[in-house]
Each structure stands twice: as C-alpha cells, then as structure tokens.
C-alpha cells in the first residue's frame, strides 16, 4: 500500500532540522533537513542505528523536544503547522497524535490504577463524564485483549507483565481516538513471542480504525512485518526511502545494505554475517560530505566533499548517494 495518493498526507514533515546545545556551549545539529510524510491508515517505518535522530524527529511532532532543542522547518498535521503555532501543537498532542515508548512505564503512572489514568486522559481530551469515560476505557482495554477489562481497571501497572503493560499503554494512547500513533521501539524490550502479539495488535488497529502509525525501530524484521513504507536515517539525515518490499529486499543505499547484511536471516548458508565496520558518529562529530563515508566500502573522493541530496531513483523511492553502487546489483 505505498501511498502515492493524490490526497494530502495526514502528517508532512518538511525540512526539519533540530539543533541541540553541546557541552562546549555550542550548538550541534542532530536532525538535518528531514522530509517525511504519512498518509491516512498508513504505517511508516523509521529505521537507523542508535543516535541517528529517530526519536528526536518523533518528539518534535508532539512538541516534546528536550529543553534547549531548537527545531526549524515545517510539521504539517492536516494542514496546521505544529512548529509555527504552539496552540496547534498543544491541541493535537494526546488527542490527535499519541505516542507509546519502548518502556511502557514511561507512559503509565506506577501509583495510579489503570482505570484512573485511562479515564483522566479520556475525560480531559474528549470532555466526557466519568461514566462515559469508563465505558471508553473498558472498550479500549478489551480491544487490546486485556482479559477481564473491568477488573483490570482497578489494578496497578506492576501487577501486569511487560507485554500486558505495553498493551495497556497502547490502549491508553488510543483511548482519546488519535489519528496518528507514534510508536518508538514498542517491542524492543519484549520477548519475540510477546512482540508478535503487539505487532498483530498494531496492524489490527490500523485496519479497523484507519489509524496512521509512525513506527520507530532499528529492528528491520519488525519493520518488515508492519511498515508499508520505510525511511532509513543516518547521522540525522534520511538516506533512503521507499516501499517496504523495495527497501528491504533490494536495498539501494550502501548503509541500508550494510544494516541488512549484518542481520542473521534466511538460512545460514545464504550469506555470512557481515558486520558494518566502525560505529555511528556522535552528534557534533558527523563526518563532512556523506556522513557514512568512513564506514562505506564504496566511498570515493567526492563522498568526502559533497553532502549527497536525497534523489528520486524510482517511483516512491529515493536515496542519498550519487555513486549508487547497488543500482544494478541483485540483493
């Protein structure tokens, strides 16, 4: 379902740059000119190693950037620019855009019963009576398959397992009926068996509620199960974007290819595990030119000099690599 639709996207991030104060009293850019769009009912994946700027990009949509962070660019949610207007950002957060995190306890208050935290949230955003809010919360818990939802409302977060807590965090995020769910590594802390349940849950919610999802994960297996389209980030920039099947089965940017080569998949005889040399650069120390060049086996002189633009290479597909060494290489 690659959305090459004519309708305007639900969310459109344009030229987003986020700078942060450094220890030396300077500013450094952690996110550099990101463009990203999400259609209605679409699941968009954002991949990349630690520190590539995935979480900061997501937090900027919610207006939840850490203190000192300065975003520049446009974040259009149904045509309202969330960066230009603090009021637009506040009215959207929680009600129209909701977020779940790797650790469900980030969103759940340990001392409040499940019912209390879910209904307060719903009452605030939907202006419902306590009774109506209870009904909404129970429905939502039931939808995420919490057994015995009425009884679960009286319990506290620590009385549930990690997987159940993540389901409750998702139920809580969705109770006010948002159009966009941002999920930052929602299954990273979970066992594969529990992860499978959460992935199926998110896919079901998208189908039933026409929910749009921004899925942040460095796990390309999770990406492959859920995302319609994938963006790959490196050192604050998008280096590849395209339909899931294209990006994962036929990676075209050397970084995407490197990430996939490092993963065990298929049968052991298919390919040896090939580690990417080195590690991702820290903010403030992004290499000049193509930031990936010190780790790239295809790097040429020009890569060290010029920052590559994200250029279209096929319908819906773009890469930031003028060398394009994988253009004709089968995966």
């Amino acid at each position, binding site marked *: 379902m690659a959305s090459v639709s004519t309708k305007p996207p639900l969310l459109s991030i344009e030229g987003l740059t986020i700078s942060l104060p450094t220890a030396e009293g300077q500013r450094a850019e952690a996110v550099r000119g990101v463009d990203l769009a999400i259609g209605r009912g679409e699941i968009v994946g954002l991949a990349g*190693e*630690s520190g590539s700027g995935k979480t900061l990009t997501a937090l900027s949509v919610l207006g939840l950037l850490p203190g000192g962070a300065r975003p520049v660019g446009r974040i259009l949610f149904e045509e309202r620019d969330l960066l230009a207007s603090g009021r637009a950002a506040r009215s959207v957060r929680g009600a129209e855009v909701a977020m779940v995190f790797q650790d469900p306890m980030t969103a759940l208050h340990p001392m409040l019963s499940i019912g209390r935290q879910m209904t307060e949230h719903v009452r605030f955003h939907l202006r419902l009576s306590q009774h109506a809010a209870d009904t909404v919360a129970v429905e939502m818990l039931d939808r995420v398959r919490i057994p015995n939802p009425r009884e679960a409302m009286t319990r506290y977060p620590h009385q549930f*397992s*990690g*997987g*159940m807590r993540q389901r409750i965090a998702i139920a809580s995020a969705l109770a006010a009926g948002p159009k966009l769910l941002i999920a930052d590594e929602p299954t990273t802390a979970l*066992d*594969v*068996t*529990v*992860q*499978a*349940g959460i*992935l*199926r849950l998110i*896919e079901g919610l998208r189908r039933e509620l026409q929910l749009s999802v921004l899925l942040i994960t*460095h*796990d*390309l*297996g*999770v*990406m*492959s*199960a859920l995302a319609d389209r994938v963006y790959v980030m490196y050192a604050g920039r998008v280096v590849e974007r395209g339909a*899931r*099947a*294209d*990006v*994962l*089965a*036929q990676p075209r940017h050397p970084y995407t290819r*490197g*990430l*996939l*080569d*490092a*993963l*065990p*998949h*298929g049968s*052991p005889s298919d390919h*040896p*595990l*090939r*580690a*990417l040399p080195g*590690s*991702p650069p820290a903010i403030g120390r992004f290499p000049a030119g193509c930031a990936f060049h010190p780790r790239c086996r295809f790097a040429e002189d020009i890569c060290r000099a010029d920052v590559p633009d994200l250029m279209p290479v096929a319908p819906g597909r773009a890469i930031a690599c003028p060398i394009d060494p994988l253009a004709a290489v089968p995966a």
Partner: protein
Amino acid sequence: MSLLSIRDLVVRYRGHSGATVTAVAGCDLDVEEGQIVALVGESGCGKSSLGKAAVGLIRPAAGSVTFDGEPVEPLGQRARPAAQRRLQMVFQDPFSSLNPRRRIADLIGDGLRVSELHGGRQLSVGECLERVGLSAGIADRFPHQFSGGQRQRIAIARALAAQPRCIVADEPISALDASAQASIANLLVSLVDDLKVGLLFISHDLSIVRRIADITTVMYLGRVVETAPSEPLWRAPLHPYSAGLIGAITEPDGRGRMPADLPGDVPDPAAPPPGCRFHPRCPIAIDRCSVEVPERRLLGPGRTAACHLAEPVAAFV
C-alpha cells in the same frame, strides 16, 4: 564425559513474599570442546540462573556441575582451584561488567595472572587485544572511552587472557546495535573454531542462535523442553514451545509476513502449572498434559524433547 556437564540442576531463590522461586527445576546440559551450545527461552525462564550456577557464581539447591571431570565449587569461601579458572563468564552488559576506574591493561592483567596459575604459555595484553580485533595500543585507556561493541570485545579479551577451555556468555550481544552484534557473533565463532574452547551461549534471539550454535537447548519455566542440533531443530521443532518461538521470529525480507502469536504470558515460576508447565499456552494440549509431567525422550540423533505428543523423527527408532 563432556567438558562442561550439568545434571539435574536446581536453583532456588527466596522471593520477596517469602515464597520460594524455583528458577531452574532440574536441567541437564552438556558442552563439548570446540562446540557452541545455545540456551534460549523467554525472559525469566531461568537461563541466567543456569549460567551462573554453571560457573559457580550461585550455589545450586540440588544437582551437579562438573568441568573437566571435576565438580565446580561455588565461589566464595575458598580460592578456586586453578584448573577451574579455565571456565570463564562473559556478561550481557559491557558497561557494568568492566570496572570503569581500571585501565584496559589491568583488567586483562587479572586474566593473565589466572593463566599463570594453571601454567601454559603466557599471552601478553597486546596479544589478547589483537585476538579480539582491537589494537594493542589501547591498553592504557579506560573502558568508558569505548563503544558498547568495543567494550564487549575487551570483556572477551579479559576472559581469553585466562586461557579458558570453556566460556559461558550470558546475552553477550543483546545490548549492542545490530552491526556490533554481527561482529561479536563472528568473533565468538572464530574463537571457538581456532582455540577449541566450548561456548555456552545464552540468548533470547533465535535468529542469531541458528547462525552460530551447533546445538540449541530450549528452556521453558525452569526446564529444558528440547535439545537438538540447531538446523534440524529450526527446520522441524519437536516441542510445541520451540515451534512457537521459531514462528514468532520476524524476517527482514520485506515480504510483510506477520509473525505467529504465541498467546499468554510466562507463568509465575513460584507457582508453575501442574503437569506440563507449558500446557496453559500449548495449542495442542490434551487432558493428560495438565496432570502428567512429560519426560525427556530421545527422539532423533542428538534430539530430545519433553512432550507427551512429540513423535520420533522419521527413520529413528
């Protein structure tokens, strides 16, 4: 007898409410030299407890652990016999397992002193570092100056300095980025091949296990439910729980396949279900499963499973 041999191992903890938790409820496991044995299972099933008991970091409530034919004594009171120091452990978190105030040379020096005790050719600090793909020049630096993957290499270099014959590695790559995971996994495989050490590789990540392990042992709620050579286990698991774990794995192939859901949660080990511990989650359970504990049976070459309904593999009697 195997290099590392675990028999009927039981590990118990006293929980906060005074209830006893049996984290390992009677497990057998063997590691031969030059072999990688993986121990897999969901979090809380007892993998780390088994690993710690295997190297003598905790005292088992029952059962035996022998290394090189000698019983492994729990650490503590008496200094360990030199021969037992050739059994080494590597932990998940390279950030907490290396003392931040000590230089790399000193950390590795500890291991070298151990190898002095049991004789054999002395390695140098530089040799240990180069063996794990680091430069000898980093010896005077501190752990915090390195990335997670590099620290895990340092931790492995320290274990190697003791010239081990067997290494127990508890989730040694789980805390690392995918690319660092691949390089540490490749490093462990080459060490096992070149030095003929035995490796007990504890992990919850089955896709990496399939890649590197000769033998895979699957644990559920304190018990071993299946043991088999990795490839046949992967292709045709005999135990429904192994099948559930394998079905839940995602493949980064871009095909959009949803992993299979294994419903339910791991039960509280303080109150394990009667009969087969897996029966409340088992898709094919029969009445007998909730009353009778399934015995481990030999069902194929090197293959055992503990399930009433598991059939021997074809052409095996």
